[in-house]
């Protein structure tokens, strides 16, 4: 019932493409960071977006999530992403430490 080979295209080529893309993205990240193209806050945003793209590529292709049924894709990703997003509430207090901290 779960003959994986039959479910999706098993071409080797796509994995090489993804690998290449990941290496190039890493290269871009390193160059951006080393050349300090942006102010730190923007740098963080850019790096995080690039990292998310890389993560998405790994999850979708290497971890085959692209080829799983939609319910699994949705449930797993929604749970993890939601959990991680709500932790951003912490940062309101991290900023407070800067403002109210000891002189």
């Amino acid at each position, binding site marked *: 019932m779960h003959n994986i080979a039959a479910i999706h295209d098993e071409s080797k080529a796509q994995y090489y493409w993804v690998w290449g893309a990941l290496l190039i993205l890493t290269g871009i990240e390193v160059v951006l960071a080393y050349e300090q193209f942006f102010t730190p806050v923007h740098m963080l945003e850019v790096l995080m977006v690039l990292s998310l793209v890389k993560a998405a590529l790994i999850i979708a292709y290497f971890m085959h999530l692209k080829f799983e049924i939609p319910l699994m894709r949705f449930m797993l990703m929604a749970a993890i992403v939601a959990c991680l997003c709500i932790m951003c509430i912490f940062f309101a207090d991290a900023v*407070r*430490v800067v403002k*109210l*901290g*000891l002189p």
Partner: protein
Amino acid sequence: MGLALLALIWLITFVSTYFFVAKTWWFPVGASASAAWIDHQFAVTFILMGIVFVAAQGALGLFVWQYRDRGATQPVHYSHGNAKLEIIWTVLTAVLFIGLNLMGSRVWATERFDPPEVGAVPVEATGLQFAWYFRYPGPDGKYGRTKAELEDASAGGESAVGLDPSDAASKDDIVSGTMYIPVNREVDLALRAQDVIHSLFIPSMRFKQDAVPGLIIHMHFKPIQTGDYEIACAELCGLGHYKMHGMLKVVSQEEFDKWLASKEAEKQ
């Protein structure tokens, strides 16, 4: 059995509600400007929740008695529920709960976001294992520097909060184990802690705020009645948590000035 259950559930409901309504044990009399607001919000919440409590427990007792098993002939209503009812009570409870919440948020906002009134009395409260110390900046209006290395709880007073005598601004700072504040003037309170988290709790002022090490938290409140009020620590801070106790003395402006002057004189 049904009757016994009915009696028990109704008895519990009645007794529990009675002691709330009779206010046998209740908040101490409010002595700050915000106390009336908080008490009002409490009363509204209390009435609404009380109605729900009595209704739900009453219905529970009634149902188990009324629909007790009286033999196979007793009809049972075969039903999987009622979507309309579900929607009605979902919406009703949502409106009730969220509405209640919004009502109370104004007090919270004014206490935390508005700056203290002009002319508020600056006081710094420091919590340490296991005592409260209160510091007044003196005539220059500026707190002197404190240093963690200089803190010595056993010495008490200025040494306990680690006041650095080499700083000019600290020359006129007053440190007291009792909190004196004038009535009808807002207190601009700065909260600090030296070792672990403490929590300054003044029930009569309806005031509570954790003092967190590494942070200086600013709060303000306005006492509207003179008198002596007790301060307790509300956050577990170690083995002496139970005896971390202080006094708040709300006095008239003249008495307050006199007290400050005498402390200044003592220091010279």
